[in-house]
């Protein structure tokens, strides 16, 4: 047990190191002046430039620069953005929780809607309801996410005027950002009409979550259904039937657990797709998340922002992936290490 933990910790640190190397080298790879890319500060004259170079150890070898860079990262000095001039740490601190909130709700929708539907379709495989669920899921899965979001905006916002199409909350409300998760912040803040603010935030979050969540749900349905069908045809289910166990017992005791176990490693890949889709959808809904921020940064060629943004997103994604892998290893040590379920 301790061995596994140590292994995963080393893996985590190693991966972060690789990320830091990539992020550092980006300062050199991006077009433009290295010093500006690294710090975000534009020196006004040569004396300042020389001072900054000495501070950031640019006159010494690459290794020292890298160590200094890593030291800066760990202490929280992430440089400044070209466009806004604000410290990057603040900007990422506002943008990141917004994206995580969106992704979390979409993931919850995929888990609580997709997995039961997948089970249902798998148990009643090749029946009419299964064909229906299967066709709906493959159709939803084939939608390009940006077109799906556009259609939702056109239908619900413009035609039916049922949901707003940009922002996180109406400008009338001023919520203190405590956690960064707006629904929790509303509950924690002390404004007068909490329920109105909550409803407003919900209507803002509904369309983006649905557009990402629908595709993630479709993916979960397909994967779960396939896993349940595979388990149903195994010999131990037939042996359990021959012992006379009822279908409910077989489902709850045997099929549920065994179908769920191969799916868990796939969640990590789901999260990746989810975050990519979230980043795309944020631009359409003007949702102030990190995807929107990064895309604005690339339009404006804000290199320090890109560097730090890449580091932040990769950090979050890799942490989640490694946590999920660790979780899998701990609850099911009997399986082959590199076996993953398929669609």
């Amino acid at each position: 047990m301790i061995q596994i933990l140590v292994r995963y910790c080393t893996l985590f640190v190693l991966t972060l190191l690789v990320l830091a190397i990539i992020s550092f080298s980006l300062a050199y790879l991006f077009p433009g002046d290295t010093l500006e890319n690294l710090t975000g500060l534009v020196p006004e004259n040569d004396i300042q430039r020389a001072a900054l170079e000495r501070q950031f150890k640019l006159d010494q070898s690459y290794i020292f620069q890298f160590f200094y860079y890593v030291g800066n990262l760990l202490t929280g000095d992430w440089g400044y953005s070209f466009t806004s001039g604000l410290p990057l740490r603040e900007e990422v601190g506002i943008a990141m929780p917004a994206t995580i909130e969106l992704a979390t709700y979409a993931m919850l929708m995929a888990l609580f809607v997709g997995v039961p539907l997948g089970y249902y379709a798998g148990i009643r495989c090749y029946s009419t309801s299964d064909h229906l669920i299967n066709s709906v899921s493959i159709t939803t899965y084939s939608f390009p996410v940006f077109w799906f979001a556009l259609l939702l905006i056109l239908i619900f916002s413009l035609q039916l005027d049922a949901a707003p199409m940009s922002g996180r909350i109406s400008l009338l409300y001023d919520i203190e950002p405590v956690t960064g998760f707006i629904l929790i912040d509303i509950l924690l803040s002390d404004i007068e009409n909490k329920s109105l603010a909550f409803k407003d935030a919900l209507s803002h979050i509904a369309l983006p979550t649905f557009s990402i969540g629908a595709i993630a749900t479709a993916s979960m349905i397909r994967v779960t259904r396939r896993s349940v069908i595979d388990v149903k045809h195994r010999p131990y289910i037939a042996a359990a039937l021959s012992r006379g166990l009822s279908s409910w017992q077989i489902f709850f005791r045997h099929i549920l657990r065994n179908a769920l176990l191969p799916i868990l490693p796939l969640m990590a890949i789901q999260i990746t797709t989810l975050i990519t889709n979230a980043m795309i959808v944020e631009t359409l809904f003007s949702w102030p998340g990190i995807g929107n921020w990064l895309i604005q940064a690339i339009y404006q060629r804000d290199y320090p922002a890109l560097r730090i943004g890449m580091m932040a997103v990769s950090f979050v994604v890799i942490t989640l992936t490694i946590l999920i892998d660790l979780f899998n290893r701990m609850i099911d040590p009997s399986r082959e290490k590199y076996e993953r379920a398929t669609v």
Partner: protein
Amino acid sequence: MPQFSLYDEEFHPSPWQRTWASFKASHISMLGLIMLALFVVCAVFAPLITPYDAVEQNIDGLLIPPSWVTNGSISHLFGTDALGRDLFTRIIYGCRVTLGSAFITVVLAMLVGVSLGTFAGMLRGVRSSIANHLLDALMAIPTLLIAIIIVAILGTGLVNSMWAITLALIPQFVHHTRSFVRAEMKKEYIVASKLDGASKWQLFVHSILPNMTEMLVVQSTLALSIAVIDISALGFLNLGAQSPLPELGVILADGLDVAYLAPWNVAVPGMAIFFMVLSINIVGDGLRSALRKRVSH
């Protein structure tokens, strides 16, 4: 004198023939295949099918509605866009650009991924397990992020977005190839070939590669659908193909400005991408079912 009895000619189909027979038996899969073939034909024969030029602007005919609306005319089948370019021509060329570049991306990713994966699969020991874990962790980086970084370094353009998506697709191929090769190396027919004196290269080309083709075909269909969506997404965000290059995502982004006045500018390219991805997914699903049936019987 024993009775003279005729047995039917024994027909033992090869594995590919059996897969094709059970693929053909499913009507939906055949429908998907026909749709995909239509798209491929459009992509290949684009210059021959299209009536107009893809980038030629026509100031007199801005935002002509498509032919099924009363105001439209048959000479512009899908109408025109805000700059007077015929939408039908643009869509056909767009299929060509999107599908073609997605295809090239997948082939490139497959070549690199399979080589790396085989290499990692035939290695042993601590090195390979470190490489495995590292690769799995790096597989988690979102495609869009890689694309943004590459665009920042190299600039925008279709070719750069193709590089980005190739990089994003490689880890998937590496992972599946590696686990497949590791599983096969434990099997006894490999041991038999090794005892016969086969070198590692011969083992790979003659024993492992023919068995890998099925898995590769299935993975390629998955990767193709991902590549199509990603290339059009990057085009939509203006990080990949740039206007006026006819790429389905770019056409969609161009149509976004006039979406309220002329909704067909948004609907038609989106439908094109949707049906392309749908046909690839249906064909991929059908292939997977056919392969599964063949293995289990």
